[in-house]
């Protein structure tokens, strides 16, 4: 019977505030992931996340319409309608899951959704999985 144990370390990518309070993460490559994943892949993931957040927080025609409609209905419309930000967040979780399955899990990493950490950091969980074959008597 196989048993698995794991050692876990976490690596965090912080927010980039150089463009103000808009949600953006640093594309600087953390040294701890140097031999785990290629720079280009990580940068691509973070850039895609950043562009999704920019799209969610864009102040433009759609956000005005949403705001005005909501105000006119005393914000009751949000009980039946999903906001644009929530739609983008769902899209982002789908993207993160896809990236985990395709790129990060085979390299022993797990990318967590920034919303889980209050949009402060993107964290990578590094797993080192080990398993030991033992006899099946001690169960």
């Amino acid at each position: 019977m196989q048993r698995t144990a794991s050692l876990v370390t976490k690596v965090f990518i912080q927010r980039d505030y150089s463009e103000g309070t808009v949600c953006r993460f640093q594309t600087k490559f953390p040294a701890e992931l140097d031999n785990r994943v290629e720079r280009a892949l990580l940068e691509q993931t973070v850039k895609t996340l950043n562009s999704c957040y920019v799209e969610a927080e864009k102040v433009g025609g759609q956000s005005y319409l949403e705001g005005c409609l909501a105000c006119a209905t005393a914000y009751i419309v949000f009980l039946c309608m999903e906001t644009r930000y929530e739609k983008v967040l769902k899209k982002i979780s789908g993207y993160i899951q896809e990236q985990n399955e395709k790129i990060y899990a085979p390299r022993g990493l797990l990318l967590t959704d920034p919303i889980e950490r209050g949009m402060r950091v993107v964290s990578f969980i590094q797993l080192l999985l080990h398993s030991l074959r033992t006899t099946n008597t001690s169960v």
Partner: protein
Amino acid sequence: MSAVMITRKVRKWEKLPGKNTFCCDGRVMMARQKGIFYLTLFLIIGTCSLFFAFECPYLAVHLSPAIPVFAVLLFLFVIAMLLRTSFSDPGVLPRALPEEANFIEMEIEAANGNVPSGQRPPPRIRNVQINNQIVKLKYCYTCKIFRPPRASHCSICDNCVDRFDHHCPWVGNCVGKRNYRYFYLFTLTLSLLTIYIFAFNIVHVVMRSVDQGFLNTLKETPGTYPLNMNTFLLVCFFTLWSMVGLTGFHTYLISLNQTTNEDIKGSWSGKNRGQNPYSHKNIIKNCCEVLCGPTYPSKMCYHDDLGVICFSLFLTSFSACFPQKTTAPLIPNEHTPDDVKPSIAAEKSSGPKDDQPPAAKLPPLASPETDAETSIAKNQ
């Protein structure tokens, strides 16, 4: 391998260490002291009830039925905005979990280098450049995070709030990024409602005076007006001036894209005037950003049922396909990270277990900081 997961979700707000109260499964979030909020509700509902009961019938008959109808709509909007402001999450930033806090500590120590013993370490500040302006990010010792720009720690609620404006006891909650527009609309519509009621009070008094004389109108019998008309007018008068003043002040802040907190501290006034890096230097753009910007999701009341289930299934398939290695100790020793020790110990004493919530029974992918804590995975 098949796996049976019994999930019990522990939501973020259930673990929030701040001084807030939650109702309705986390959908309502308020500060602990709610007394003044009840007073606000009482004053608004009480005054409007008196208006509807004793003045609207006369006005509807002698002037127009549209007057009470519009008053009702305005009143409902005011209550909706008040409740929305009071019950929403103002933009609370969740506190850093232990790993993140340690990571930040390590970064700080690396940045400070070796501080000779006896000397105070330098203050924990990070400088960022936003629109050619250096902004200092302060470290919050309670929440163990570097506060984002414009965030501040509310000592009453004991939380860091994003784009913190102020803590308003009248609404029983902080005013921050997520509920500032509702607060502004509340003050604006309450001013309008107060002006409306006050104006029609005056109209009512004038019209009755024309009919029966001014003094008689003011001394109306208790049967018709349980409260003296003077009291009613006085309450309206004082509310009006304070609400109009407050609305005017917040309109000024919005046009400059500043918060009350920044205004009080003088961050972008005096010698720093004109250097606000968040302002678009255009009143219309500033107003649009604050009032018509996107509706930010709550970082506390985030419900993510589907994400939890998908995550758990991924866990089992992942551990099944990883190649076999036999190097790490299964017995926890002094080198094993603390948060892994319980899971290793639990793995050793495996076998049929009772349903128990803690995540310690599984390899720490389902570590305590995720919303879902899976109870058990039975390998068959």
